[in-house]
């Protein structure tokens, strides 16, 4: 067994790796392609960064292709993303034209690879039209929706579904997100990689240097939210919760750590709103991190007392799982995939308001034993449910089922 598989076996267990080897055996040498719209920033890129090498290690010839576009394309796909999360966004025909043309242009480059592939996963709406642009495809094509599409804005979903309906299957993080489609919709939550820079064990020296780098006081409690500067992540709500906690625990510090994804044009605007809301409070640390600051985020999660993900909408908050893996109780927004990730009162708390978040932050800070016990349960829950070995097992199972259906 390779070093990589051995490393996964040490963390996830022998059975987890053994299942992957059994499922991948009939796929050895097969061409498997993932397509998304950004190589850095955001959860999808993070998942693929580690899943693609693991798939290759298992003998599946796996590649990761990224479609590129101009500003109008990203404006369109950001609007589409917001609309799928429920915002009543009307996308102009000009932007939709940019979306279609960008996909057509990318298809010119990608067509030979995609039409030759045995298995294709198209991630999210950005590259969804590629299937219709590859008429001579021979493999199984599956659309993966990472977004909380539980209540999509109908005109936008209707537009997108014309591209999605012809896939062999699709998969969503939760049953609430599944839509009416003429094919089978599988439910596969995403995952984290325990061996990545974001989640690996760190030395105390690395953690210590992070306190110094960001001028954090290690003698005082720290609450953290790691996420893009996006309104759906509710950074303003986190600041409100912090201000409420500050009234009774004046020594509290808040770290908001985020970066931009290359396919998110709204980030700067939201960042400005966040800075305005923080004002001159020197205990609020607003960090704009580069997309490759994985070890920094890892250290921030480890040095924090409490981690928040107070999203108002969330497909699946990878940062929730990352923090739980580090033995932290997480206070998360009572929405979307976070409900699946956090077991309320066992591995963290689900909250609906800044007041709710403030209550739970105070409750935990005043009860360190409870915080420790919750963190311990959180880590084990992630080990059993949200590591990428489980994720890949389910993806390979899905394609195995599709292959078997073709044969029968």
């Amino acid at each position, binding site marked *: 067994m390779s070093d990589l598989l051995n490393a996964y076996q040490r963390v996830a267990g022998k059975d987890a790796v053994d299942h992957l080897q059994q499922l991948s055996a009939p796929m050895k040498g097969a061409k498997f392609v993932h397509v998304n719209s950004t190589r850095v920033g955001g959860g999808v890129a993070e998942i693929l960064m580690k899943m693609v090498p693991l798939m290759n290690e298992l003998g599946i010839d796996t590649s990761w292709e990224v479609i590129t576009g101009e500003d109008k394309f990203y404006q369109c796909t950001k609007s589409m993303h917001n609309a799928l999360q429920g915002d009543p966004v009307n996308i102009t025909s000009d932007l939709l034209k940019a979306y279609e043309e960008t996909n057509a242009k990318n298809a010119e480059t990608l067509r030979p690879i995609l039409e030759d592939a045995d298995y294709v996963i198209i991630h999210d709406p950005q590259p969804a039209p590629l299937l219709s642009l590859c008429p001579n495809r021979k493999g199984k094509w599956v659309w993966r929706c990472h977004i909380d599409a539980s209540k999509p804005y109908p005109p936008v979903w209707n537009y997108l579904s014309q591209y999605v309906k012809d896939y062999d299957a699709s998969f969503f993080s939760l*049953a609430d997100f599944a839509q009416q489609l003429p094919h089978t919709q*599988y439910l*596969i939550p995403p995952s984290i990689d325990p061996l990545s820079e974001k989640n690996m064990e760190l030395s105390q020296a690395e953690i210590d240097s992070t306190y110094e780098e960001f001028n954090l006081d290690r003698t005082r409690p720290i609450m953290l939210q790691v996420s893009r500067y996006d309104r759906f992540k509710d950074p303003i709500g986190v600041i409100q919760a912090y201000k409420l906690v500050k009234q009774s625990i004046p020594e509290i510090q808040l770290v908001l750590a985020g970066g931009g994804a290359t396919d998110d044009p709204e980030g700067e605007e939201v960042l400005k709103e966040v800075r305005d809301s923080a004002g001159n409070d020197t205990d609020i640390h607003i960090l704009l991190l580069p997309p490759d600051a994985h070890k920094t985020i890892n250290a921030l999660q480890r040095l924090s007392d409490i981690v928040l993900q107070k999203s108002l909408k969330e497909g699946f908050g990878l940062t929730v799982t990352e923090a739980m893996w580090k033995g932290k109780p997480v206070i998360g927004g009572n929405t979307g995939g976070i409900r699946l990730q956090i077991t309320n009162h066992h591995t963290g708390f689900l909250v609906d308001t800044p007041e709710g978040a403030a209550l739970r932050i105070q409750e935990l800070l005043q009860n360190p034993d409870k915080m420790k016990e919750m963190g311990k349960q959180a880590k084990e829950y992630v080990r059993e449910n949200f590591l990428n070995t489980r994720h890949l097992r389910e993806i390979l199972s899905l394609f195995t089922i599709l292959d078997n259906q073709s044969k029968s």
Partner: protein
Amino acid sequence: MTSKNENIQPFNIKDCAILNIATGVRAKNLKGLRDKLLTVHPESILYHFWAKKLRPGFEEPEYNNDFATWAYNNLHDIKLAERLSLINPGTFDIQGLRVKLIEVVELSLEENNSDLKTKEGEQFQFIRSEVVVFNTQHMISNPEELKELLPALAPGSIYFHFIDSKNSSGDISSWLLQFGDEYSKLADQLSKLDPYFFTLTELERKVSQIFKDFLKGANQ
């Protein structure tokens, strides 16, 4: 006790995992649940009774099916949760199970005089699943070996052999019968074991105890 038949094929212990599939069928209130139960695919009804056993979690252990857990967590109706939880799927065929579920839900609808509703995002989502089966390294040649191995088996193996495959090639009782008539008593005890009210850990312990008691008696 040793094998009387050396021609018996070794038994390969399997493991399994479930892959969930959205049906698109949802209920946001009790009346909606009743309506959907009338037509939802039978596999989905069975899923909500059994798949919970393979899902690690911290849900209230006294409610051992998804319908009961939903009634408790989302409708906040303890009486309904208790009644739903008492329904043992092993004592009904699928049509009977459907009828029983509807009967319990309708009783609650009558008693409440109003339809219990959930908050947004707390709908009952009907799911079904595919079971994916794996080989394991464990190949057993006789019941004694199985007795020794049981405590070390993965939850998926317990689920597959003692719940999912009772009527298929993964059924251990059928294999045991090949060892001679005296094993029919052991096979019979395993067949009578009702797994519904046990967690997989408890089920493993029960099965282990049955094996221990039988083999001890047989060796005396």
